[in-house]
């Protein structure tokens, strides 16, 4: 029994670009020119065919921009293919972004009905499941509070809980486990395996390779909009991890084109043995390595790596500017390594940007966005927002019994 079928599916996006050259200064002329902006084709998914059997859990992995999310959007019917055909057998529920269907002004209860009906459920069906949804999310006291007053954790829990309790025939999950705390993540994974046991067909997209391996029966590896490998979870994940180009994954780059000065080649993360890795533990030695190419020497250069949370907020950065030194980079290829004796990031998924700038320059000489994803697993224990490298020494005052009073009244 085939639940999902992709038959030679392609999806093309038209990317419009402002014509930078011969841009007129005059506002009206610029406006007219912008109407005939250069359009560039971009195939997010190209000739993809696959099938998912009933009850199977399929994982899709690949670096950013490989076409994973486009596949999910096509499956969820949010957008339509440019060519090819998709067959979906049964009720499909997609969790593309947790809580995206919430209306902030409405209460938790109203939002459950709203989300349920968006996913195609009837009101009485939702009523039947209300208790279970609320219990799983743990928001009993807040059921009649507008969700705009919810904490972000409650938001995430409710969102997952709704999607996972609507008993869809097919469930699509996109990077949902990247948010939420560790205990909720494991609860989610448990729920996913329950659904799996009951015969729900699941498509799971995640950077969390550990979770993919635990949950998925079969995994597709995508690259540049095409499926490059398909097979058992272990097999494909191994291939992915060994693929150097994954760790140094490159995405669309931007910067001053035309007169190229310098170009970032790759970013990779290494451990203390100099091995490339994309998964580290909090507190482990960590090195980030940027390879670049310089065509024209740059003086007062700045190279930095910015780490983002999955929500797109800047979390922290490595920058050569930190020490107030501005190196001169000369023609040819180069490598810069940032060393961090103990990784301070807490468990989670981090996206990265790499940039080469010139001191005082307005725009980066070259920048690559969302280059490589770094996953941090629990390591050295700790609570809070980051891990602080620490050493400690214990010293105690030796108390001599007879002179106990004397110690207090030292004169």
């Amino acid at each position, binding site marked *: 029994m085939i639940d999902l079928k992709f038959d030679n599916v392609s999806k093309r996006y038209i990317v419009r670009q402002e014509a930078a050259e011969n841009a007129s200064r005059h506002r009206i002329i610029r406006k007219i020119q912008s109407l005939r902006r250069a359009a560039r084709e971009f195939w997010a998914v190209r000739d993809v065919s696959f099938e998912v059997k009933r009850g199977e859990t399929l994982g899709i992995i690949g670096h950013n921009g490989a076409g994973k999310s486009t596949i999910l*959007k096509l499956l969820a019917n949010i957008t*339509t293919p440019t060519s090819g055909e998709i067959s979906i057998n049964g009720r499909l529920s997609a969790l593309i972004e947790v809580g995206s269907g919430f209306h902030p002004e409405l209460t938790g209860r109203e939002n459950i*009905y*709203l989300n349920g009906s968006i996913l195609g459920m009837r*009101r009485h069906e939702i009523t039947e499941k209300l208790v279970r949804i609320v*219990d799983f999310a743990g928001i009993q006291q807040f059921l009649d509070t507008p969700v705009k007053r919810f904490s972000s954790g409650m938001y995430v829990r409710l969102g997952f809980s709704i999607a996972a309790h609507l008993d869809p025939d097919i469930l699509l999950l996109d990077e949902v486990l990247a948010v939420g705390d560790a205990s909720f993540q494991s609860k989610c994974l448990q729920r996913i395996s329950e659904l799996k046991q009951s015969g729900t067909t699941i498509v799971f997209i995640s950077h969390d390779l550990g979770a993919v391996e635990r949950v998925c029966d079969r995994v597709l590896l995508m690259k540049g909009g095409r499926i490059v490998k398909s097979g058992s979870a272990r097999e494909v994940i191994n291939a992915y991890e060994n693929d150097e180009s994954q760790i140094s994954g490159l995405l669309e780059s931007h910067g001053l084109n035309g007169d190229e000065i310098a170009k970032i080649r790759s970013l990779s993360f290494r451990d203390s043995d100099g091995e490339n890795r994309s998964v580290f533990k909090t507190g482990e030695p960590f090195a980030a390595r940027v390879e670049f190419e310089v065509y024209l020497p740059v003086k007062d250069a700045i190279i930095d790596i910015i780490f983002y949370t999955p929500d797109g907020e800047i979390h922290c950065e490595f920058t050569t500017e930190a020490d107030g030194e501005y190196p001169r980079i000369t023609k040819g290829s180069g490598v810069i390594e940032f060393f961090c004796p103990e990784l301070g990031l807490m468990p989670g998924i981090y996206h990265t940007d790499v940039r080469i700038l010139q001191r005082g320059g307005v725009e980066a000489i070259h920048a690559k966005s969302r280059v490589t994803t770094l996953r941090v697993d629990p390591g050295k224990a700790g609570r809070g927002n980051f891990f602080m490298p620490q050493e400690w020494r214990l010293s105690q005052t030796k108390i001599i019994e007879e002179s106990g009073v004397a110690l207090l009244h030292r004169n």
Partner: protein
Amino acid sequence: MASNSVLPNQVEPSAAPRRIKVVGAPSFSPARLLSDLSVLSHYRDLLYTLSVHRVKVRYKQSILGVAWAIVQPFSLMLIYTLIFTFIARVPTSGNVPYPVMLYTALLIWTYFATTLTNATNGLVSHSHLVTKVYFPREILPLTYVVAALFDLIIASPVLLGLMFYYRVPLTFNALYAIPIIVIMTMFITSVALIFSAAQVRFRDIGMALPLLLQIWMFATPIVYPLSAVPERFRTLYMLNPMVGVVENFRRVLVEAAPPNFYELGISALIAAILLPLAYIFFKHVEATIADVI
């Protein structure tokens, strides 16, 4: 969490029979139109839920609440009455007092204007939903139609009050108001579908809308009766579908007369042709909406 024990270990498979859905490149065929309509009917609970929410959210955190549905046409009625009876003299239709004539027309005009003002931006303002989950997108503009219809119902008793005050008799002809509102709703729905879909690509629609509504209002017999329009312009004037609707809504409610079926027929015909075309256009735009919005 303490509630872990409540979690059922087995998930019962859904009882409803599975439907096979095939998605291909956007194209038009009568079969697809039918399947679109059947999907829409499957999602009727969403239409209901969203419409209820639309009404609730609109009046939440406002002191007057639902009373705003009355305040709007009523204050317009006061202003226009002041202008068009004290400053400029505008004839009324038959011997109906001017405020009654005006309020009746404003009731149905407010239904039209409120729907369009909100629905035009209905898809764009829900881009967070449209790019993240699937449901038939026409539900979004439709909810604004339902919400404005709700406002119309809230504001209607005031008309009865006015009629009582001015001693205007209510007759059985008033029952014709129901089919008139049906025709009106068909027309509003068509315009809302077209505008909201066009707004996704061309935000100019939203910009031009206030002006368009202003012009449209004066091209409709609201502050003046149809009889005030010179005879030789009548035919051209009647091509505005709002004319037949507004004029006859007034005739059956406050003039105690049966509708003019010729005038109403023109409006009904235009609405009946426009609605399917608007729906096809909307579904055509819908296919790529998430890529453009």
